[in-house]
């Protein structure tokens, strides 16, 4: 991982550029990325959704392609989740409401994140892949979601933040009851 990479501005999936001063070209090792992903998993499992939102660069996006993954982006294909920043925040607001019936009561989830790899670095942008298993329990049902993360992170002086949070399912379809009413 080069630390002398030319600094290039982060470009958000929505085409805008986030505040420049946040980006950093400091070195990042895998342990830091693992800590970031593990902390994120804990925030989600504990339903600390406001804390979870602080892990994003404002303006960032979140995606979950359908299980027949076509290699196309959400601008050209049907997706399960294709949230811009407004929708990420709307999703959190919704999930905190007791009127989010699909998650009232909340699912119990337990996430395992593994096989973390730093695959690409350009300036303050870092592409990260990892495997996940999310075990979810609700209404006497057990659901297992298996897949990989394909995230784009921004390196900041004090840590990492999501520019694009992308969860790619390995499941062939959503099993009975296995709707994505929580954050995958």
């Amino acid at each position, binding site marked *: 991982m080069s630390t002398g990479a030319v600094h290039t501005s982060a470009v958000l999936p929505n085409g805008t550029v986030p505040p420049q001063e946040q980006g950093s070209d400091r070195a990042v090792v895998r342990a830091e990325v693992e800590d970031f992903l593990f902390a994120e998993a804990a925030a989600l499992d504990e339903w600390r959704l406001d804390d979870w939102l602080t892990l994003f660069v404002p303006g960032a996006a979140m995606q*979950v*392609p*359908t*299980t*027949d993954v*076509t290699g*196309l982006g*959400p*601008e*050209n*294909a*049907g*997706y*399960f*989740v*294709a*949230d*811009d920043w*407004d*929708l990420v925040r*709307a*999703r959190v*607001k*919704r999930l905190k*409401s007791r*009127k*989010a*019936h*699909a*998650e009232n009561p909340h699912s119990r989830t337990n996430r395992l994140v593994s096989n973390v790899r730093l695959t690409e670095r350009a300036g303050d942008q870092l592409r990260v892949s990892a495997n996940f298993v999310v075990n979810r329990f609700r*209404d006497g*049902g057990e659901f297992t979601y298996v897949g990989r993360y394909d995230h784009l992170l921004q390196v900041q002086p004090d840590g990492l933040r999501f520019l694009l949070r992308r969860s790619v399912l390995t499941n*062939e*379809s*959503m*099993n*009975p*009851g*296995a*709707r*994505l*009413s929580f954050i*995958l």
Partner: protein
Amino acid sequence: MTMIDSPGATAVDERLEVGNTLIAQDWEALTFKVHRSAYRENAVFNRERNEIWGHTWLYLGHETEIPEAGDFKTRTLGGRPLIFVRDRHGTVQAYLNACPHRGTILCREPEGRAKNFQCFYHAWTFKNSGELAALPDSDAYPQDSAFVESLSLRTVPRLGIHEGFVFVAFDEQVPDLLEHLGKAADVMSMTASIGPSGMTTVPGVQRYSVKGNWKLAVENAMDGYHFAPTHNTFVGYLRETGFAVNDDAQYAHDLGDGHGLAVLTGHNGRIGMIWEPRFGEREKIRTEAKRKELVARLGAERAAAVADSSKILFVFPNLLLFDLEALTIRQLEPVEPGVTDVRAWQLVERDEPDDVRALRLKTMASFVGPGGLATPDDIEAYEAVQRGVVATADLDPFGGFADTDLDWSDMSRGMADDLTGPRGRSIDEGVMRSFWRHWSRRVGELPGIGPDASRLGGVA
């Protein structure tokens, strides 16, 4: 929409009749109840598989899913595995996905492009137009051409296409597709006319399964009454983005033969037709231009019918067409009484600008599908009903429709309107009732199921 408001070809009294004892309809008291065994019992499910799924037109897929010769998808309908393929001559075909030799699943890929389908078991090979192409060691078989022809792939008995929507039937004797679709056909034509160059599906199919009876998915789609309480958080999101939401003067239509249409004027903008702030300023300008294009092409009256209202069309028994902010085709496949597989495709205008396509798909994903802000609550509702309707099972000591009876779901809301015509308020339950009446006539009497069984004292 005047074509929908006019009285149907079906006589009123026939339209309002029920066909089995699982429906308790009382025109004096204006009550309508559905016996909950209809959602639970294997015997009901098996009868539906036979009488409905075995003997009527079923939605298979859209022509644009298989644009090129050799393109195929595998799909299951009524429990039967099928290959949906455009053959070497460009003709849309549907084959039973089983080798004529020993019944092996012939094509095990979900989709692809193939000139031939080869069974891995004994290497029998078939052209995508159905004829046997190769049979190893064929010397051991009779050499006459009739025998070889008898080994062709089995096509479904009937296949019909309306506006790109492909339907099949497992019964040769079904009426012609357009006759079956009736008034639903014109609603499909309206949706198909939105794009000046037509409509197409895009890749990325939402595949999910619900722990609920398929009829709950139909009820939910035709039920405007649930929208405000169930989708409180989504309505809140719409209001925050600057769009007014209301339920006034919205109607649902019994289109006959089990088909239904909910017309919604008060919520959801329509991309290219009714602008709302979350679509952005650039889309506002385009919406005005697009409306002019629609009027020029379709005439003012038809353009208004197409553009001014969101619509949810149900085509009996397995197709839902959501013509809302964007367009979604949803297909239902019952697996068990309490399990339904769902597939959903996004339908878009051909040749629309990239940014409009992106907006359309993002907007749809935000609402529908198992990861949207609204559909998960619908799924929660179907699943909660399925979990709840066992509570009253066999607690039906007197049979009939007396107040003491417990094992019934009430669908009486707005029933007086059923007598005045096929149109009622969308927040009433009229289309749900017309669906159930049609369902009950198709399924017929089920001795031993529901209230009859209780009357006999619930003997096992």
